């Protein structure tokens, strides 16, 4: 495979899981005339790194039993950590896709992929080990995080999520004067990663210098 993300060394995800997630996340946030989607933004890289963080093993979660299903209002009650949830859910979804369509998820057409994702979202896909809705909610939450969090976490590469919104990233000292202003403020987004890697310069207090975007 000659995909650009191949240059990334995945610490947790397997090759098959990367292919699944690149396909699934790209359906959730697709590339279109507004700009890059989840795949180019590096959302799968984000998910891989995030699964290796304390969150990926639910290191700050309460993890003692008894484990009961509970009501939806009682929140996450699966004994699986996010690492284990991704592993089980991707494998079992691919098994479903093979039985249903004769192919793994990543080889399906876009319409078929949406069909599977919608079934998961509405808990209509019966997976043996996990609730498909619980997995979908986790996947969508992580996709959104990966697309819009600071690029220091591996996603939102090139600040594409922030450019999509018109969010300028790390704030400028000029904001204080602009608080009451009706003037629309546009600037090239600056991330923590940009500052750390020397791509953006900061003043004595650590605030970046914004480069304004001229209105078209």
């Amino acid at each position: 495979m000659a995909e650009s993300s191949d240059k990334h060394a995945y610490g947790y995800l397997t090759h098959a899981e990367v292919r699944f997630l690149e396909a699934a996340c790209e359906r959730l946030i697709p590339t279109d005339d507004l700009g890059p989607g989840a795949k180019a933004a590096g959302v799968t890289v984000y998910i891989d790194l995030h699964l290796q963080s304390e969150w990926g093993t639910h290191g700050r979660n309460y993890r003692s039993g008894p484990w009961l299903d509970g009501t939806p209002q009682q929140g996450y009650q699966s004994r699986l950590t996010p690492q284990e949830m991704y592993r089980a859910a991707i494998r079992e979804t691919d098994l479903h896709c093979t039985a249903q369509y004769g192919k793994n998820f990543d080889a399906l057409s876009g319409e078929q992929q949406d069909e599977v994702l919608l079934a998961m979202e509405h808990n209509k896909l019966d997976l043996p080990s996990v609730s498909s809705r619980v997995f979908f909610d986790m996947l969508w939450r992580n996709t959104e995080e990966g697309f819009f969090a600071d690029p220091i976490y591996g996603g939102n590469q090139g600040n594409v999520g922030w450019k999509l919104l018109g969010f300028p990233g790390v704030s400028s000292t000029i904001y204080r004067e602009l608080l009451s202003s009706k003037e629309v403020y546009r600037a090239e987004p600056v991330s923590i990663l940009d500052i750390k890697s020397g791509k953006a310069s900061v003043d004595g207090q650590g605030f970046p210098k914004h480069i304004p975007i001229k209105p078209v």
Partner: protein
Amino acid sequence: MTTPTKLKPVDAVVIGSGVVGSIISMELANAGVNVLCLERGRSAEQQKDFVMPYVQDELKFDRHSDIFQNLSRETITFRNNMTETALPMRELGSFKPGEIVGGTALHWGCNARRQLPYDFDIRSRLEARFGKKYFPEDCTSQDWGVTYEDVEPYYDQFEHIYGVGGTAGNLNGEIRAGGNPHEGERSREYPNPPTKRTPQGELFAKACQELGYHPFQGPAAAMTRDYMNLYKNFLGECARGGFCSSHACSQGAKANPLTAVMPTLLKQPTFELRPLSNVIKILTDSTGKKATGVIYVDARGRHFEQPAEMVILATYCFNNTRLLLLSGIGKPYDPISQTGVVGRNYSYQTGGRVEVFFEDREFNPFIGGGMVNTSVDDLNGDVLHSQPRDFVGSAYIAVSTAGATPIKSKPVPHGTPRWGAGWKKAVAHNYRRAFSLGIHGSCMSYRGHYLDLDPTYRDSNGLPLLRMTFDWHQNEQKMLHYMNEKVSEIAKAMKPSSYHARAPYTKYSIVPYQSTHNMGGAAMGADPKTSVVNKYMQSWDVPNVFVVGGSAFPQNGAQGPTETIGMLACWAADGIKEVYLKKPGQLMV
């Protein structure tokens, strides 16, 4: 349990170093009392730990930061009602208690409103006006045991510690332009000027005026100018860079224990702060009527007995209640027999919003933070309940410009798909064209909403977790439906392209973030049959124990609790200094 090592006695142990613990420590240490403050969380230094650009990290601070409670050691269990089995809150969601020096206030949103005079005697005031049946039959809301007039000087004191910015609307009885005409009478102007009004706030204010309402800039505890506070700590002016609520502030502009109290408190020779010290029990003597000190566990797991002449419990609502239950102080509440008090009167905060979308305008939604807001109190307190309603309670309405961060703040019109190309187009189009009118509402307390010890689940020390039984009551839902109607009228008067009122939640869920305003469990009051502490925040049962904080709220008003929690710290400290210490061990009257 290992035998605890007994330490040298101190005059006072303060449990918790948040908004309450830090102020009471300062007040007592200044009065010459030897104070030891035990904090379960780690220590933190404003200028070392919270710096640019790293504080502007939404992923970390909105979701995973170690300034929040680590649930792997201790959480609560939750159920909607008594027929269900409570299950542990395994991850943070609905609220975010802190676990650090400075406590939850480290990441608060700086909303610094006083309660209305109405809030302190809501039960007797509304019953006198409309009769006893005005409250739902199962409602346990009650008067506070203090009036607004009693505590006004202590609101004033807290505002001069936390550098609150605003315009007095009622200064010694005189109604003043630009302020909130419906507020209780103030003895003094705010220490700092009000926040500037944003274009979004201006649209809201204009619509409110057309409808006959009285908009004002809501009080905020993020500095509106450089400020030297009552404790001689310096706080810098807010940069309005967003990343405020749920974040620590790199500018030291957010008043909190680390910025407003700790720098000078830590220099006091009569004060010692001991972080990573988790109190698990308050000890009492053989009579059960006198506390002798506390047991705490340090980071190495060693147990210590810390003897003290008095114990001040100053933690979050949950731990104040839980420590009383674990220590056998006060009678636990039983919702069946309607007896006991500890754990009674648990309440929360209601919320709602009406989103407005403007096709022909763009805003700068990322500029803000530090509680920049334009508000009205015309649907709150006595103004609303001057005529009978089919609900108790009320709300303030505000356009707050908190700094729209990209993971969580992407308003889209009703009916937008949740993901895919349609969703992407909608978030891109609307991020700069939309904002919300927020409904910040009260929450009454009820017989079946309470806190007790869980029969099954335990913390990392083997002690029972606290169990919360809570759901949204019909009364609060009626109030929110009414507010949606009234706020939609304001939204309409703003002439947006479209607007949409979010339907109130029907069942309370622990999953989506709602509010870190968990209240009650150790209510204050005038009657020991219905309160845990008297009006001086002193335990009815063990007079050398004071329980101060959000736990003391008999129900939650609309205004947001932090300002009142800070006021209660000043009020309790004054009572201890001026009355209690002259006759230690006596119940104050």
